[in-house]
């Protein structure tokens, strides 16, 4: 199997070289040549304006499944302390959109206990069906139990798309389920679309720390599974609708779970809730010191905002780890995001670019953050923020 370049069609335009993140194409006599370190990722095939690049496949492609047998979109619920997590509801709103395009049902799958009297409330979130797998042990999360139940259910009902929150829980069981089903799974998606002709789910996700976006599809197998970031899609509107509820009392055997939960340790002081915050004030290295963060905190306080930061502020111990925003922290989408002394590295951007309004304060006019901001202020944050705080205080007084 290899990438083939048609020397007749190749114009030496180098588009393929630019698309190659592995540096595995060079120009030889003005014709593209593939080097041994090619990983067959196929980015160059899409990039070539002349359609001069193709993939030569062996015949051994895995046995084809009849993908037309698979119908329907699923969202698997995540819950903690008997509360369904926001990301699951956000996935329902995206799931509704996908199901409508495909003209199929949207199913909410809950593995838990004590949800009986909450199903009515959940049914306002736009699904057509709820499958509720009930067992006392499902109060907590166990990877082997989730894997067992979900695979059984998939084999029985054959959905074409399964959406799961890209959390420590979702990213734990989704791969295990995918492996058991031999299904394709895309991690940490930030965009989902349908190619109606093939019914393929086009899954867009950041890679290389968000430097590059990749769109991935699963053309020849079903279900198509994706874990999806929290905070990317909006909460669904509540609607009145007839929802079919299927409740299954599930009995596990002793040997179904090998692992035991010994205990849960909470480190909480006051819980940080960046995901739900309406306003976030975030500081970066430009804040200068732990002491100086007091200023950022003051701004957050007058705005009733949550405090966040770039990774460096966490590494320097200026802020607690749960306040990190970005690729390796949380993804947020507040109404207002004020970035103070943050340069706007792509790993930070992917965590906050969905905010409605972004304000950037940075003394460097060329800081990349300004490419993403709605309002930019070039200047010293230590001079600007105290005055901003005073102005907001006055506004707050006038409101009262």
């Amino acid at each position: 199997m290899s990438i083939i370049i048609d020397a007749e069609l190749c114009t030496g335009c180098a588009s393929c070289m630019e698309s190659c993140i592995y540096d595995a194409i060079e120009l030889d006599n003005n014709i593209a040549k593939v080097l041994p370190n090619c990983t067959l990722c196929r980015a160059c095939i899409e990039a070539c304006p002349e359609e001069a690049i193709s993939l030569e496949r062996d015949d051994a492609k895995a046995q084809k499944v009849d993908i037309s047998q698979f119908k329907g979109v699923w969202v698997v619920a995540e819950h903690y302390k008997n509360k369904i997590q926001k990301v699951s509801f956000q996935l329902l709103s995206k799931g509704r959109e996908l199901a409508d395009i495909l003209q199929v049902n949207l199913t909410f799958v809950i593995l838990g206990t004590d949800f009986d009297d909450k199903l009515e409330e959940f049914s306002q979130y736009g699904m057509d069906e709820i499958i509720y797998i009930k067992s006392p042990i499902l109060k907590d999360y166990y990877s082997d139990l989730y894997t067992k139940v979900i695979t059984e259910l998939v084999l029985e009902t054959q959905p074409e798309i399964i959406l799961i929150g890209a959390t420590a829980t979702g990213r734990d069981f989704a791969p295990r389920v995918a492996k058991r089903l031999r299904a394709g799974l895309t991690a940490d998606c930030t965009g989902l679309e349908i190619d109606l002709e093939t019914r393929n789910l086009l899954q867009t996700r950041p890679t290389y720390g968000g430097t590059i976006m990749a769109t991935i599809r699963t053309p020849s197998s079903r279900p198509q599974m994706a874990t999806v970031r929290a905070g990317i899609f909006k909460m669904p509107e509540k609607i009145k609708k007839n929802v079919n509820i299927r409740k299954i009392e599930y009995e596990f055997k002793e040997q179904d779970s090998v692992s035991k939960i010994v205990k849960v340790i909470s480190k909480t002081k006051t819980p940080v809730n960046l995901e739900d915050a309406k306003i976030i004030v975030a500081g970066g290295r430009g804040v200068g010191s732990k002491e100086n963060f007091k200023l950022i905190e003051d701004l957050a306080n007058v705005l009733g905002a949550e405090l966040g930061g770039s990774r460096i502020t966490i590494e320097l111990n200026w802020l607690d780890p749960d306040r990190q925003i970005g690729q390796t922290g949380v993804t947020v989408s507040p109404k207002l995001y004020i970035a103070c002394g943050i340069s706007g590295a792509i790993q930070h951007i992917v965590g906050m670019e969905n905010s409605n309004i972004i304000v950037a304060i940075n003394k460097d006019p060329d800081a990349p953050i300004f490419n993403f901001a709605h309002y930019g202020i070039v200047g010293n944050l230590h001079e600007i923020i105290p005055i901003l705080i005073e102005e907001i205080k006055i506004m707050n007084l006038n409101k009262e």
Partner: protein
Amino acid sequence: MCVKQVPGVSEVRIDPKTNTLVREGVLSIINPNDRNALELALILKEEHKVEVIALSMGPPQAEEVLREALAMGIDKAILLSDKAFAGADTLATSHTLALAIKKVLKEFDSEENYLIICGAQAVDGDTGQVPPELAEELGIPQITYVQNLLLSEDKIIVERKFRATEIVVIETKLPALISVLIDINKPRYPSMAGIMKAYEKANVIYFDSMALNADSSKIGLNGSMTEVKKIFFPERKVNPIMLEGSTEEVVRKLCQYLKDDKIF
């Protein structure tokens, strides 16, 4: 334990003018999380006299990361390298790694008492999917996002980070697989003697698809269910409204805009 060679991503940048990748000076490194996996394996080796084997799948250049692992003190290094492995997604990668692990286990007397340590995620693809898929294929339990581990006889007790502020303590019997976070330890630097040994004496063992007796429909591109349709650079939003004037003016303008936007 499983190590992956990755490009040093912190250095992968986009040239804002041409919107292309800047690759100059981008070196290949051991995936950061895998250094922690290595360190943990070495600690277990010292405390429990276990044998540590590092496994990597990749092109021949990946031998470098295995040399580094040998220099840190592992006992044996195996590189899975074959053109037929190329283009693998996590499903095919985990299958290939599992074949090699089964092969190695067969050569040992005990196929029961083993622990697989992976990094929680690789910085290039950043999927974190290989560890659970590998555990599933081996038919053993997995615990991901581990930040502390206690090994005693035939069981492990680990601390798994599952929310920003919550840790769950889980106990499971061996054999098992864990994937570790950066917080679990501070990886050591190889000693001079270790480096000498790794480069002069130690061998990296190579397995190709023949050696693994691999089914060609389950490895590389053929064994992959996902397919990259396209790769692109994140879209840049343009034309921010830049606020100018004295500090007071700028602040007042900002507040006015935010009022107009119904934020205030």
